[in-house]
């Protein structure tokens, strides 16, 4: 089979035509949730997932899949399994109404990060962190601060040490992002060329 794509001809496809072995579970790895901060001072917002074997690789992948346009000042990644998810509420009903004041006592004091869903159909945003022995206690501790505020429809609670943050010295990796103009529609203006062509054609038609 001769391809029009020289890359395909170099693939040396012989030997790959045989039976396909179906993929084993996790051949594509597990998933990591990705949070992006677009500007200093703005909250980190959930943007999607990457498949990766571990935190470090997830960070490397997330950087190009979720911040290769516009601006970015930092990324968090965390394995999906490490996200503690509350129930969902609707309307004017905040999820903090359902956070019990009683919580388990086991566990060491650790820091937990909070992500709130403020509008159905939108994404979770980072709001802060508390120290607690477990996620349930963390929620109970956060409850007084939020129960009388705008309704929160869902909360993700994540142990701070499960998250891979961007280190300060690595933040330069986004420095040239605003200069990648070739990825933007605004870099492809050809109106003048089109106009000149049409005027030229109109002039030719008149001569005839």
């Amino acid at each position, binding site marked *: 089979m001769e391809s029009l794509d020289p890359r395909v001809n170099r693939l040396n496809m012989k030997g790959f035509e045989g039976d396909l072995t179906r993929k084993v579970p996790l051949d*594509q790895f597990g998933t990591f949730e990705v949070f992006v901060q677009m500007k200093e001072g703005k909250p980190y917002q959930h943007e999607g997932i990457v*498949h990766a074997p571990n935190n470090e690789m997830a960070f490397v992948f997330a950087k190009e899949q979720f911040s*290769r346009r516009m601006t970015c000042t930092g990324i968090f990644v965390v394995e999906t399994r490490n996200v503690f998810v509350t129930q969902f509420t609707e309307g004017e009903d905040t999820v903090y109404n359902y956070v019990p004041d009683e919580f388990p006592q086991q566990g060491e004091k650790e820091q937990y990060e909070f992500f709130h869903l403020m509008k159905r159909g939108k994404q979770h945003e980072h709001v802060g962190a508390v120290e607690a022995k477990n996620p349930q206690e963390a929620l109970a501790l956060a409850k007084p601060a939020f129960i009388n505020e705008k309704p929160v429809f869902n909360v993700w609670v994540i142990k701070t040490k499960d998250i891979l943050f961007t280190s300060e010295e690595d933040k330069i990796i986004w*420095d*040239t992002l605003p200069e990648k103009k*070739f990825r933007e529609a605004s870099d492809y203006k050809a109106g003048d060329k089109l106009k000149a062509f049409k005027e030229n054609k109109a002039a030719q038609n008149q001569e005839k």
Partner: protein
Amino acid sequence: MNETALKELLYKVADDQLIIGHRNSEWTGMGPLLEEDIAFSSMAQDKVGQSQALYQLLHELGEKQPDTIAFTRNADQFHNCQLVELPNGEYDFSLIRHFLFDTAEAIRFDMLTTSSYTPLAQLAKKIQGELRYHTMHANTWIKQLGSATEESISRLQSSLDKALPYALGIFEPSPYEQELIAEGIFAGEEALKAKWTEKVTEVLSQTRLEIGDLSAIDPKFGGRQGKHTEHLQPLLDEMSEVFRIDPAAEW
């Protein structure tokens, strides 16, 4: 300032970036994992963009337009090291080359941030973040695959053994080493090689890969003088196939 020496430096660095970027872009759409496909493509774009910026510096020194320089020269007019022109092979070779080359590239541009030729120093400073990501990507992969399974370790080891003589070819001395060093344009290939050896050894020491005795390896020189493997001319023919239909046309 010794302009001949400066141009020779700019040409070889620009040619390196263009050819490695071109080679790496061949993986786009065919990578081992969707996420890695995307990451590898971004770095290829960065490198091609960097080559364009370097050709632009040459243009400002009186050389032709970047497109003309990149798309109309023949292999014997290219000054890239032979490492970057080798075919991609399997992903182990592409990753090892990426690691060996990008480590050198990042150190070279770091050295160039203090170049006495200001436009080059400015460019080098600007792209530090891009190169930080490239080496982060390379080191993460090499550390992980280099200590994972028997297969991944033996694949990377054999690619490393194959690539090392070519990697040492990166540091082929320029005929103008003394002038570049004396004028503070670039601190020289020997200094670069020393730093590179230290860094590469440091990363590999965290894996089960063996770098061996570099002084026992015969470096593949020639690229810097326009002597190339049989792989470069076909690469250039392919890259310029459309451009050469009509080099004066706007595509």
